């Protein structure tokens, strides 16, 4: 995807809106329809830079509670960068700088008074490639609660490990082999272990960055089911490059392009009746 998109993109004759970038930005961020779910995460005018290179341009997005919000867009458009703003993982990249406001439950997460350790306990993250620690399954799940001092004594931790694995749909498969290494599991199981590990610190929000891209279709289906169950208790933001996945699992979808948030709204709307031609081109597979 390059500038050529604008030239080649089929512009409907009765629509002359897609002439340039600036116009597109003005139309993108306003959401008119009222969501039945309260806003959990609110991003307002977020810019992100890697050294001199700007990766996000004035992104504003509301993420509703107990919904799955999918971030879609061609690769390199800034989806991961935006996701990593929400738990401040970008702080771990020395050259990365983020400006703008992000609030969770109306609390500014970039406020100096906020401890990033606490924030990351509230906002869990699951990565593209399953990354269990080379420890036992049990220790993988117990890691977070131990760090945050969330459990007193072994019985507490045992309970937490069991309930987290149960919520991640992994308990029945591993309950007899909790002492085995997390890396000995299959890819799909490893990813569910990573979800259990995130759930164990009792977060409000779970961020998932292409969680299924390293998995086979069956393992993918398993994780997608799980996401649907998890959204009863958590707010989920998922980056995916699969349009079908976004359509299957999410209630809300946001389309990113070249660092701009082009359009966001209810998933059916985005997929059946997008406002922006770039969105339309992307979901009909014309680029990306």
């Amino acid at each position, binding site marked *: 995807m390059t500038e050529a998109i604008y030239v080649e993109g089929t512009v409907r004759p009765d629509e002359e809106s897609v002439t340039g970038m600036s116009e597109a930005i003005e139309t993108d961020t306003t959401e008119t329809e009222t969501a039945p779910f309260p806003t959990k995460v609110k991003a307002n005018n977020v810019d992100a830079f890697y050294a001199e290179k700007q990766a996000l341009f004035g992104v504003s997005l509301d993420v509703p509670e107990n919904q799955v919000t999918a971030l879609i867009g061609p690769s390199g458009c800034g989806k991961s960068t935006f996701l990593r703003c929400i738990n401040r*993982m970008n702080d771990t990249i*020395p050259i990365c700088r983020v400006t703008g406001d992000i609030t969770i439950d109306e609390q500014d997460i970039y406020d100096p008074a906020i401890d990033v350790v606490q924030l990351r*306990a509230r906002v869990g993250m699951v990565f593209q490639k399953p990354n269990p*620690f080379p420890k036992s399954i049990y220790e993988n799940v117990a890691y977070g609660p131990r760090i945050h001092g969330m459990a007193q004594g072994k019985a507490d931790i045992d309970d937490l490990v069991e309930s987290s694995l149960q919520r991640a749909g992994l308990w029945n498969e591993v309950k007899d082999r909790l002492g085995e290494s997390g890396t000995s599991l299959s890819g799909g199981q490893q990813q569910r272990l990573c979800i259990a590990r995130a759930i164990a610190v009792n977060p409000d929000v779970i961020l998932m960055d292409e969680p299924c891209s390293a998995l086979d279709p069956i393992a993918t289906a398993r994780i997608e089911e799980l996401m649907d169950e998890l959204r009863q208790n958590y707010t989920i933001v998922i980056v995916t490059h699969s349009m079908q996945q976004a359509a299957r699992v999410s209630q809300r979808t946001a389309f990113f392009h070249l660092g701009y948030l082009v359009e966001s709204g209810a998933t059916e709307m985005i997929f059946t009746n997008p406002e922006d031609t770039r969105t339309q081109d992307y979901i009909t597979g014309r680029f990306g």
Partner: protein
Amino acid sequence: MNTIILIIVLLGLTTFAYRYGRRKALTSVEGRVANLHSLPSYHGAYVALWCGLPALIVVALWLILQTDLVERMVLSGISDGISGMTKGQISLLLSDIRNLATGDITSRTPSPMVQAAAAHYVELQRLGFMLMTGAAVILTSGGLYFGLKAIQPTLRARPQVERIVRWLLLIASVIAILTTIGIILSLMFESIRFFGQVNPIEFLFGLTWSPQTALRADQVGGSGAFGAVPVFAGTLLITVIAMIVAVPIGLMAAIYMAEYASPTTRSLVKPALEILAGIPTVVYGFFAALTIGPLFRGAGESIGLSVASESALAAGLVMGVMIIPFVSSLSDDVINAVPQSLRDGSYALGATQSETIRQVILPASLHGIVGAILLAVSRAIGETMIVVMAAGLSANLTANPLEAVTTVTVQIVTLLVGDQEFDSAKTLAAFALGLVLFLVTLALNVVALRVVRKYREEYD
């Protein structure tokens, strides 16, 4: 000198052969490389190998064999004069002849016989050189002619060149292996002779080490006690002290470099640390003997401790400093090899950097760190110069680091620089000690490499 010129000329001819072969291959297809079976450079290499290789092999063999042959011929020329001499006298005579022939100063005014022999020697050498040059010239030009004649578009130059190169590589590796085997065999052979004189049980478990034996039967001297335990204990003590210094400092330096330092700092600190490994050990040795040893002695005296001026502590400490880069550099590589995704996973759960290092990074790189430490231990055990200069010679069986101890390597050095006959138990003991040392470091290295390799398999 002449030989060097000859070899340079041969190499020059070989280069010429390469160029010429290449050009001939190109002209044979009028520049259309696609018509050649192999690329022109392979044709060049083909001719060059024909031209240079046989001649260089002959020159090398000639140089190896010539001296021996010439000496034999010289000696047989004066066989009358040396008929009554012992082996030792003959070899002295021969070295006189050699010295005279090469123009070095001789120990005595040469006798007429020696002078004649020397002249014979010079004569034979000159003849040998001329023959060698002749052979080389014939082989080179013959090879050049043959190689060039073989060149045609269908010549399968590449497979043939590659086969020869493969043989050369094989020979190189075989030389390294054969050398090792040779060393092991000679160690074993001499050790067996030693164990013929001294009971192996006594050697391995005896508590007294006093290798002085009487030079002559009527002499009053040490009776010779070859219980090596004090020597092993000394090595162990110094190695432990060295590791106590090197492991924590090296590991912490590695953690700093891998996890905390900015790329610029790391690119400065890492080479700076590695310089420590490049300092000649003899420099560490006199640093330990002349600076650290007296320092400890003085410090000990001022608080009423008696510290030997050649203490295990001084030697171990300095050795530890020398070994720091072995631990730090390898550990740093291993820690760096821990995938970033594990760090991300830990940070995303709200772990701080130090929690991540202690609970994720170090456990994940433990195998590699253990491997690094084992390699450092084997380096410490085999280290010689520092202990020769700073640890002393007295074979005390002690765990007190303030006393002087001796090590396996120090004993080997002192046993071999003595003026005993070569087949006395004293000299042979050095081989037995060497064998033990070799087996221990070999075992450590094998274990360490295993451990490191196992770690490597875990992520990739």
